[in-house]
């Protein structure tokens, strides 16, 4: 369990986590990048496509 840097909710993480993997927070949906694994550190993933519907 690691706190989501966006909304503060706990993010359940699977075991064989790897640096660079993308998960999403199940509370706020933010895409999070795993930047460290032991202990796990999550950061907001860079916005892939800002104007996604434009």
């Amino acid at each position, binding site marked *: 369990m690691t706190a989501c840097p*966006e*909304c*503060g*909710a706990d993010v359940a993480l699977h075991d064989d986590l790897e640096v660079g993997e993308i998960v*999403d*927070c199940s*509370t*706020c*949906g*933010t*895409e999070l990048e795993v930047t460290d694994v032991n202990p796990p550190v999550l950061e907001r*993933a860079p916005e*892939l496509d800002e104007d*996604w519907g434009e």
Partner: protein
Amino acid sequence: MATGATPETGAGTADTVSASVVGASGFTGGELLRLLAGHPRFAVAQATSREYANRTVGSVHPNLRHLDVRFVSPDEIEPVDVLFAAMPHGASMERIEEFRDLAGTVVDLSADFRLDDATKYDEWYDGHTAPEHLDDAVYALPERHRDELPGADIVASGGCNATATILGLGPLADADLLDGADVVVDVKVGSSEGGAGGGEAGSHPERSGVVRPYAPTGHRHEAEIEQELGLSVSFTAHAVDMVRGASATAHVFPEDLPTKGDLWTAFRGAYEDEPFVRLVAGGGGVYRYPEPKAVAATNHAEVGFELDERNDRLVVFSAIDNMMKGSAGQAVHAANVALGFEETAGLDFQGLHPVGAP
């Protein structure tokens, strides 16, 4: 006073209570029938229609073809545990005396019992003919009135646009983040909001493809919103091309702009344990903010927000299905609470993906 049975002892089995729907040929009335027929604790007793009396409910609502129920005239309505009224506003207040005699609990979907003061009806509607009943009514939205609902005599289901707005702004109002704020609410709604029937403006050729301002100013839901939030808002509604759905975008200019953290605290605090509210704020993929089609056919509301620091603005989005969370679903949810049933009973449909314009 009511001759209807008390909660938990209905017309059906020992475990069910009986429920009738007045105005059952209409849109929200049909939705009520669907929900009640699929509900583990309600048994449908009667469904009224003046126009379609004696026809099967399936002749009007094709999704109810399996139900063996025929419309009766509203005059033939009999004592029942819970009476749901789904008539145009003005009609319920005329008959409230009779309804309360017939049923222990009256759930009204019109605006007739939403406001707590007769003077508000003078200001926003055409007055009220049964103001002495206003005190017995509880505004339905369980997210805000859960504690007052059990045992309520009259449950007044909220307006659809008001519901969307109140769910979006409520947590901020409660956290005193809206004190002194200017608030614009820009709403987009589907055609089922107008009810069955509909004239030329609601015909398919004229109503398709619109972004049509239909209530530029002075929308009556401002009254409910102000009552529920203690806050006046500037409201404008647009008709768009969908049948179900209401989407509210609140543009808020608070005296002090909260942080994202403040906002998450307020919204998570308010909704974390709510069975029918989902927070959707940013994230990836196609569905990043609330939108009606993500909640279509469900009793869910989606609520989300974004900070606009450049303009000292906070934008709050909320989306509901006006037939569900905005009317029939909210009514059943509130009835569940009022009668001590499982809150989510009969309301477990989770929605569809993909889905078009439902």
